[in-house]
């Protein structure tokens, strides 16, 4: 009979490339035994420990990370099973004794066997949404335009830039209060540009600054003059006037025609009065119906 290690093993293994130490596999449920020969299997950068169990147990897995050079007080840690994130497993991990510790208890049954991994994440997805996706915002000369950015987690600060080709120029609302107004409300920010001119067309960038990195999103603003909508406007008004005139002229013509050839079976009376809307149509003959 080979020697079995029951209960737990404390494993410490350090690699240069990845300073993650799988510290403990601790047995919580009394009466059961993890009986396993221990294997270390290195798959590239990750450390995989294979644990075999005989019966369903509650297993606590713990991870320790010594962190990267700029040690932040809080980072996010979460667990993955078979490569996909376990829901509601994200936790904020504090820096304690120069390391981050992440622990979680898993109920391992026949159904939940698999590959469990712990991940320390630098930033949550800083997805920024603009109101419109990839379509330029249209605004008018002399008018103002507003753009908003929203993220899931409130960042430390928001910054707005004006992009000129590859360069970015910071927008400072305090130096130019008549033109720019920046408001911040938790995880939303709004930039209002007033007194627009044609030069204000271009790309605007909002950037959410987090502890670890910043996330940006861009929107294009197009400034046009009132001449642009005026053209379709005039076209439509012209169409309306032409149609109205055509219809009224047709009416007058058909009533004149029927007045010249009255038939006993005329199914519509030839009244063409306009009422009091100011148009004086000549009243043609009225049909007498017996």
């Amino acid at each position, binding site marked *: 009979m080979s020697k079995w290690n029951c209960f737990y093993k404390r494993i410490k293994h350090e690699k240069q490339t990845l300073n993650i130490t799988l510290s403990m596999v601790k047995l919580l449920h009394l009466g059961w035994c993890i009986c396993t020969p221990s294997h270390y299997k290195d798959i590239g950068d990750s450390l995989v420990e294979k644990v075999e169990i005989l019966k369903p147990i509650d297993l606590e897995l713990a991870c320790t990370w010594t962190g990267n050079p700029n040690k932040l007080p809080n980072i996010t840690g979460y667990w993955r099973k078979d490569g996909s994130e376990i829901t509601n497993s994200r936790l904020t991990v504090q820096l304690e004794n120069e390391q981050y510790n992440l622990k979680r208890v898993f109920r391992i049954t026949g159904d939940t066997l698999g590959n469990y991994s712990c991940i320390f994440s630098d930033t949550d997805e800083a997805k920024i949404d603009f*109101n419109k996706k990839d*379509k330029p*915002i*249209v*605004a*008018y000369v002399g*008018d*103002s*335009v*507003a*753009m*908003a950015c929203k993220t899931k987690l409130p960042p430390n600060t928001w910054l707005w830039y004006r992009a000129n080709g590859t360069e970015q120029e910071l927008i400072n609302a305090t130096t130019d209060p008549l033109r720019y107004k920046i408001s911040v409300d938790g995880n939303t920010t*709004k930039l*209002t540009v007033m007194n627009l001119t044609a030069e204000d067309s271009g790309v605007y960038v909002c950037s959410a600054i987090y502890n670890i990195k910043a996330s940006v999103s861009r929107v294009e603003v197009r400034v*046009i003059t*009132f001449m*642009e*909508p*005026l053209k*379709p*406007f*005039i076209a*439509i*008004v012209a169409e*309306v006037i032409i*149609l*109205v005139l055509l*219809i*009224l002229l047709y*009416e007058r013509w058909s009533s004149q025609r029927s007045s010249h050839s009255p038939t006993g079976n005329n*199914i*519509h*009376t030839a*009244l*063409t*009065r*306009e*009422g*009091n*809307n100011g148009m004086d149509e000549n009243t043609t003959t*009225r049909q*007498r*119906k*017996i």
Partner: protein
Amino acid sequence: MSPAPASILRDTPPDGGWGWAVVFGAFISIGFSYAFPKALTVFFKDIQLIFGASYSQIAWISSIMLAAMYAGGPISSILVNRYGSRPVVIAGGVMCGIGMVTASFGNTITHLYICVGVVGGFGLSFNLQPSVTIIGKYFQVKRPLANGLAMAGSPVFLCTLAPINQFLFNQFGWRGSFFILGALLLNCCVAGSLMRPICPKPTGGQLTQTNGTPKKPTTHRFNKFLDLSLFKHRGFLIYIVGNAVMFFGFFAPVVFLAPYALSHGFDEYSSAFLLSIMGFVDMFARPLTGLMANTKWIRPRIQYFFSFAIIYNGLCHLLCPLASGYGGLAAYSVFFGIAFGMVCALLFETLMDLVGPQRFSSAVGLATIIECCPVLLGPPIGGALVDTFGDYKYLYLMCGAVMVFAGLFLFVMNIYNYRMLERERRQEEGQVEEGCESQEQDQEQGLGLRERGETSSEEQGEGDESEAEETKLSHA
């Protein structure tokens, strides 16, 4: 109620010919009236951002517009009674156009409330009522079909205005879009110009009542503008009560269809697609309902058909919570689209059937201002239900129950009404049906108006010689 016997003493409605052009004009007007307030929501996000307002403040724009559209009913009726449909629709188109153009220069939300909401809303009411009225003048035999076709304007315009609005917004921003929409609304004037006047307004409409008591000059002079004696009309009262109850539960399911689908976990586009399904089905349901209502089996019992449509609507809502999965919701949308279209197609036809085309313009004005309240309160009450219970199920149960109740009420009361009409008709054997007071007046007008022509015009004291002359000559 059987269709009015074609009296040889008055012009029979053409039932065709230019009537179809009028139906097209009504199609355009009705389309703008119902679809425009809903299609405006495309712009709300951007306006909300730039004015720094909350969503509910912006949503008031649509609500005010809808409220003005319904509340403007009586004013619209008075004007139609006085001047006929055409000038009113043209004026309405101009008002809408001016409202939207001035709105595009606005800088505050109040400015939008007034220009889009009030001015635009009243302009739309000047489009809606006259359009429905003039159909009654041009059609008698084919009237349900004409009504169904005209009412189909609403879903067609909604389906076209929504993408047009989105396109305009992407090209021109909200200001330019409002500017151009002002021009588009002027097309209502084109619709109005199609509405050639026919069968001039009766002048002494309420000179003698069927029970023979002559009216006092002041009241009958007012009734010439807006027929308040309708409140004594049994059919009209039944219609008003039943419809007022029905409207509480009518629009809320439409408003909450997309959020309901979202709450089930479907994405935005799938949820919006449900509304498109509904609108598409609605487009065809309305003319088909009109066609069905025109058949000789249904036309005499069209009030029952209307009640059935309302009950069917209610049943759809009651069964909705049972729908599971996207297929279930899509099936619900199809059935709901059919039901919605049926009710809308018959909405004005049944009123015309009850009060007759002559009094219809007043009737529709009074009906819309009374319906204004439940139409506006329905969705917010539904929203409150959703917020309180956290579940859309109760909203659908409430709407379904309200509509089934309204349908049953109308059904029962119309059994009673038909019976009373039958009895009155038998009592007045040899004369026209008394229940349809307007028809009796038409008869009287045909019979006696030539003699009464001059006296009636003097009695009115309006001094509108041209109107009296018109009456005199055309009824000769």
